[in-house]
């Protein structure tokens, strides 16, 4: 092989590597202004729930993590929900608290929506980030079960090829002197995201019953019962566009199942705000039903009133 060819090839590979790393580092740096860092996630999901004092733990998916502001609840609370959280992840997180001797809280809110039993995956990077570091606590597929190709694709998508729109938007906001923060965490676990929903968007939910999701929902209820924690199931508010995905029959069956599970595991109450008329599109971030900061405060006020009726009555 001619030497000159090898030299040229090496120069090309070297310049490409340097260039890729430089762009990658710069994009991560810019993203840091808009989004919480990995350290923020670790603090909120693995440190604060262990060291903060609280009587009420709030679990659930993105609708809950965005929608409940623990500062507005009369009972000391921590929002332990996370984006895209499936039922197995909820259960794994409860186990994480148990392992760290933090099952001393008295009440738990289990956030649920009509999409909660349609998925149970924990293979997405966002889930892996929230999962307890102890592999034994991971309930289903582990990182090692995923193929090499799949891991490579996930690595490329999450590390290099993601969120360039946010990069450009953040750069633009910084250049024009505006606040570049899009999403941030409060120390009480609530995630606050900027934005107001637009009716132009659609939301399509592929509804199917994932037995694993149902199984871990039951396990979470059993966990609360085993530890003597009073549980309340909460359905957060949603938008008409999201609700159009669920038929009346589907919702009726879903409610019936949740009712029977709740009575079996001594759940103290079911609060369903799905069809609540108190919310308008401007209270949401998007048509998928995620509340923005104002909407979250509105919802938390309602939730506080109803939760206090249940837990307060018990305290009396």
């Amino acid at each position, binding site marked *: *092989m001619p030497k000159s*060819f090898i030299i040229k090839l090496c120069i090309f590979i070297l310049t490409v590597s340097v260039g890729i790393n430089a762009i990658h580092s710069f994009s991560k740096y810019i993203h840091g202004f808009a989004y919480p860092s990995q350290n923020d996630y670790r603090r909120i999901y693995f440190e604060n729930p262990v060291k903060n004092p609280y009587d009420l733990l709030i679990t659930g998916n993105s609708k809950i993590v965005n929608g409940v502001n623990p500062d507005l609840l009369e009972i000391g609370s921590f929002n332990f929900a996370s984006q895209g959280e499936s039922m197995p992840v909820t259960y794994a997180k409860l186990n994480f608290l148990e392992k760290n001797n933090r099952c001393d809280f008295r009440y738990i809110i289990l956030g649920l929506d009509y999409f909660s039993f349609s998925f149970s995956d924990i293979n997405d990077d966002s889930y892996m980030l929230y999962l307890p570091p102890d592999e034994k606590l991971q309930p289903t597929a582990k990182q090692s079960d995923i193929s090499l190709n799949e891991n490579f694709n996930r690595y490329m998508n999450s590390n290099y090829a993601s969120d*360039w729109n946010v990069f450009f938007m953040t750069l633009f906001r910084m250049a024009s002197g505006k606040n570049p923060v899009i999403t941030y965490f409060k120390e009480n676990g609530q995630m606050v995201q900027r934005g107001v929903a637009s009716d132009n968007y659609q939301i399509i939910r592929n509804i199917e019953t994932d037995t694993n999701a149902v199984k871990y929902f039951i396990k979470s209820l059993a966990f609360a019962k085993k530890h003597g924690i009073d549980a309340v199931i909460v359905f957060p508010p949603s938008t008409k566009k999201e609700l159009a995905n669920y038929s009346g029959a589907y919702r009726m069956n879903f409610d019936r199942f949740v009712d029977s599970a709740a009575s079996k595991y001594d759940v103290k109450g079911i609060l369903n705000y799905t069809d609540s008329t108190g919310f308008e599109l401007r209270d949401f971030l998007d048509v998928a039903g995620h509340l923005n900061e104002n909407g979250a405060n509105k919802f938390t006020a309602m939730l506080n009133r109803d939760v206090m009726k249940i837990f307060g009555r018990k305290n009396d």
Partner: protein
Amino acid sequence: MAFNSFEFLVFYPIVLVLYYIVPVKFRWMLLLICGYFFYYRGGSVIFLFLITIPDYFLARYASSKRNNRKIVFVAAVIFNLFILAFFKYALSQGGINIVMPLPEGITNHVIGAALPLGLSFIILRKICYLTDVYQKTTEAEKNFGKYALYLSYFPSVSSGPIDRYPNYRTQIESCPKFNSGDIVSGFRLILTGVFKKVFIAERLSFLVNEVYSNPQDQNGLTILMAVYFFAFQIYADFSGYTDIAIGISRTFGLELPRNFDRPYFSHSISEFWRRWHITLSAWLKDYLFMPLASYFTSGKHFFSSARYRDITAYISSALITWFLAGLWHGNELSMITWGVLQAVYLTFSLLTKKPRKKFSKAMARRRIPKKLLDFFRALFIFNLVSFTWIFFRSESLAKAFIIIRNLFCNTSFNGKYIFGVISRFDIFLSITGILSILLIDIFDFNDDQKFYSRPAWVRWTIYYAMLFITFFFGVYRSSGFMYVKF
């Protein structure tokens, strides 16, 4: 093992280095071993080996001077067609079951596992070899290993290009040596192919997949965009695959035939098919259309009236050829409709040849620039082809008709609904992808001479730009290439 997988990213450089380390006369053996290993990662090597054996012997027999060699040749072709029909159509749920009903208990999953990788392409290559040997345009291969390599050559085993045996044999016999020009040119093609697949095709699939899976919910403008996006998605996907295949082969010093020649710049449907999937079109023409046309023009059939003989021969041959081409792609009615539509277009093109020529002359007299006229011609052909892709992409004929109905009858051409399907940024990147593939065609990256005539800084800027864009704006998935499923 897909070209866009991590496995391949490790496999290929190892093979390339080994290829130039082993002595020249043993290189074909290395390629054979690698071909079987590649096949093993996506299909059954035993199956591949078993279907290689009969043709090797039958072709040698058919090339002899024995009297019954024609019978042997016909039997060999029928045997190959039977294998194709059995795996592709008999073991098939949905669509038209042309051979036999599916046995109870056999699920789609079983069929997916049973369908051998690249079978359709392997069979076409086998028929091509048998015919050439029978017609004595090439000699039957004496070395079983070299024949096995022809069928298992890993750059082209799963989706072509369908290289002809004489071309393969000449090259493999010439024992290609290291040539840095070939390596650079091959790498450039591989980069172009990966860019087309990862940056363009995968991104375009966002809107296409959403719209084609729920066509009933979409308005006219969204469907129109999805139809155009799919036209470019399939082009980027398949030509991207071909670029990678040709590029890899070129780095081994072996040239595979070109499969795409800027098809969306065609001025007629027949020209489109001379530029799109060139090796398949040529196969269809040489081994199906021409023999059929020759039979129909011989006057032995029911269209014996001399006046209409040529035209009826053309129409009949085109219809049969494209019906079978549709069936080759899949046994769903939508795929067959796609094939038949091509025949209808080609027939219409033939019938309107004279008026179109007159029209061109009239335009020239009115001093309308030829380039402008050519642009509108290309645009018209692109729209005709995009319309046929609706049938190609739809999961069923019913869904294809829903798309067509909504495209023309749902007159709500409100752009805001598109943003409900994919984000503005994805639309921006999708359109950038479409413009990029048009630029690739305008600069004709596949033509070494044209590409190297540009200044070095332009070439190197293109290399870096494609690499960085692929790296940072690509969509990495395990979905593989579209044509692998055929």
